[in-house]
């Protein structure tokens, strides 16, 4: 994602210098880095199928 305004803190790079950002991203990425749960993928397949049958 590109920065469109001002000096918003950037993502993983800047965080090395900033303990608050570093921890914040660790908390967030604990979840974001997980593989997508099957439930979600199943739902997506169902939506796909419904879309094809429209």
């Amino acid at each position, binding site marked *: 994602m590109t920065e469109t*305004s001002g000096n918003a803190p950037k993502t993983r790079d800047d965080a090395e210098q900033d303990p608050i950002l570093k921890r914040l991203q*660790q908390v*967030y990425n604990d979840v974001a880095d997980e593989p997508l749960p099957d439930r*979600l993928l199943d739902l*997506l397949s169902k939506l796909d199928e419904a879309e094809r049958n429209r």
Partner: protein
Amino acid sequence: MKDPFRDELIEALRSLRAFARTFHRDEARAEDLVQETMLKAWTKREQFQPGSNMKAWLFTILRNTYLSELRKKKREVEDADGSLVAGLAEKPKQDGHMAMRDFRNALTLLSDDQREALILVGASGFSYDEAAEICGVAAGTIKSRVSRARARIAELMGEDEADGSSVVGDDRSTTSAVDRGAQAI
């Protein structure tokens, strides 16, 4: 069959799950929120402008879904399980460090507005303008929420951390406000 909408949606799902967990401590409820968001996005897919920011669009839907469920629930009962205190205090298995626990607790002590702004800009990678769009406020408001959130966390974590000398992996116990907060949770 090629479906760019679907591909972009999948790409945004990981972030969306992380964002959902900042609203619900309970993992199953966070997943429900993500599913609900996906269904809504799929139903409204004609409204999505190809080439615009899919992630921001999904975050907006998720946030609105959460808020409308919250309003519905508030009419029924008070927040019975305290899920308003965000999902972040929950300590995952792999994270045994005192400093990280303090940080998670500090996050829960922020106001909802401040925490949301900090997460959107500091972790989800949105610009101030994009975060402002998602929350329906001015970019300047997001900026000031982020800076107040940072100041509050620094205060809660104790000044000895301000120089960054003790980053992650610090097992020493502190007597900061975070400890008092942790007891309240």
